[in-house]
């Protein structure tokens, strides 16, 4: 692989061991996957922030990295931590856990990384442009940036995104190359959305529907590139699909499978620019195809324990945007009741700042819920906080909760879960 004189010097350790390690990792990946050179990236998103996910060995790795005094060279944002970094005591996070978590955050701060702690950096200022090369970890954000924004990133592991952030470069392979972004799996959505067993209005434009679709499709396409299309093309016209649906779809695809990129007829930018025209003419060739029917979605929904009494409702995987918070607030205002279960609305500190100003935070707190920032139900130690039956509207959370938090999952739309929580 070609390296410039300067890159060669870093690779040979002339600027110290830590830079050498970063370069060695990026070049090794490039060599493996056939990169001809390194390219500059415009931003990075670093995962592996919660003490619960990276453990003591991960903490030691970050301690060594930050001790070198190196700083990131491109705008870099951080994934959720294991706790709310402000309100952790009140919410009841264990003290020994909090100590380790703060230590990890300090290491990232030393490296010059923005301490936003969100899995939706694209909702809070880290917004790549169409065809920008970026180096992002966080599987759901990779899927969103590649698919919905049309930026170019591989599924970076936490440490390789950090190495890239420091170098400002990544290897030129995989999803950075146009020829590797062609869809190979045709997904026909032949669904009567209103018959899906969720309780909410307008199911064709509700994130909970797309979480179920994403879980099912992810398992089948694995690390392929799906191309979604509605069987009835009219469905697409005037749908104005909410970005939270696309966020939820990608998150579920990346959790049950290894999907880094999907295209959606008439909706995602590369589909519109590059593939829809060929598709309409019948010139887009796929390795495989599958038609998603209501039976498949019902099968997916039947995996959950929906008659169970809820301990905790978790909304915000990936982190809630303002429209999801507004949906919750509207129901609370309408029902005027106290929640009979705990409610976490997980979001970024950016979104919460505006929710505070709009009075939404107070409405949620008055009903007995919490706006939790910097973390989420998957990377927080909720199993140690006494939560067993956890309700979510997220296909991604529903995939990780049983394995990583020993939870039993209740699945539904925001509307349905909040009403259950008020009336159970």
């Amino acid at each position, binding site marked *: 692989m070609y390296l410039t004189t300067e890159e060669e010097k870093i690779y040979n350790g002339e600027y110290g061991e830590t830079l050498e390690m970063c370069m*060695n*990792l990026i070049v*090794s*990946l490039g060599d*493996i*996957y056939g990169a001809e050179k390194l390219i500059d990236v415009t931003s990075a998103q670093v*995962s*592996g922030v919660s003490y619960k*996910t*990276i*453990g*003591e*060995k*991960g903490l030691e*790795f970050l301690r060594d990295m930050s001790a070198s005094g190196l700083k990131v060279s491109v705008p870099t944002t951080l994934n959720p931590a294991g706790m709310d970094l402000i309100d952790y005591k009140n919410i009841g996070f264990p003290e020994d856990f909090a100590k380790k978590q703060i230590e990890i955050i300090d290491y990232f701060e030393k490296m010059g990384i923005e301490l936003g702690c969100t899995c939706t950096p694209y909702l809070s200022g880290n917004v790549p442009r169409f065809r920008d090369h970026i180096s992002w*970890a*966080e*599987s759901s954000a*990779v899927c969103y940036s590649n698919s919905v924004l049309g930026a170019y990133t*591989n*599924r*970076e*592991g*936490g*440490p*390789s*995104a950090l190495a890239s952030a420091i170098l400002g470069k990544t290897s030129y392979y*995989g999803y950075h190359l146009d020829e590797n972004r062609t869809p190979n799996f045709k997904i026909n959505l032949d669904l009567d959305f209103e018959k899906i067993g969720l309780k909410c209005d307008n199911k064709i434009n509700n994130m909970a529907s797309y979480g179920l679709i994403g879980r099912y499709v*992810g398992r089948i396409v*694995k*690390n392929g590139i799906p191309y979604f299309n509605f069987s009835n093309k009219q469905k697409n016209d005037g749908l104005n699909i909410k970005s939270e649906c696309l966020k939820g779809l990608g998150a579920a695809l*990346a*959790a*049950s*499978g*290894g999907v880094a990129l999907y295209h959606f007829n008439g909706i995602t930018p590369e589909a519109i620019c590059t593939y829809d025209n060929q598709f309409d003419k019948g010139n887009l060739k796929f390795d495989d195809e599958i038609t998603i029917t209501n039976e498949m979605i019902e099968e997916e929904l039947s995996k959950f324990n929906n008659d169970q009494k809820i301990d905790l409702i978790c909304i915000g995987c990936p982190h809630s945007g303002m429209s999801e918070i507004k949906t919750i607030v509207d129901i609370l205002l309408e029902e005027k009741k106290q929640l009979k279960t705990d409610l976490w609305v997980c979001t970024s500190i950016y979104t919460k700042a505006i929710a505070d100003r709009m009075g939404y935070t107070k409405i949620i707190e008055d009903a007995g819920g919490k706006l939790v920032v910097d973390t989420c139900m*998957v990377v927080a130690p909720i199993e140690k906080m006494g939560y067993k039956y956890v309700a979510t509207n997220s296909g991604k959370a529903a*995939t*990780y909760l*049983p*394995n*990583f938090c020993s939870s039993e999952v209740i699945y539904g739309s925001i509307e349905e879960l909040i009403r259950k929580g008020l009336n159970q």
Partner: protein
Amino acid sequence: MEELKGRIISKGYVEGEIIISNSPISFLGGVSEEGIVTDKENELYGKSIANKIFVFPTGKGSTVGSYVIYGLAKKGLLKGIVNQDCEPIVATGAILGKIPLVDHVDISKLKNGDKIIVDGNNGIIKVEN
């Protein structure tokens, strides 16, 4: 001794018994810090990959998987990996954790309990008969 030629992902040389998952693995949520498989939908659920060479088709799920692999390798629990098709998240964990990883191997030729050598320096798997 049968030889399977693959691709070098992470260098190193190790001998050991293998344990196979036929479905893709997310290390975050899929394997505990002690090396127990915690993914309830995986056929290895409840089994330990500790002190074994882990064979699986490819990675999936969380990008934090690299740290989980790194941690398992640093503790000496995970000895080596063989993949059908290795993705960057798994590759990163193996390279940093300094355990051998070879991919582009037809893993259907391997069976649970086989004793193999993973030669990450040459990209070769040797199966003891």
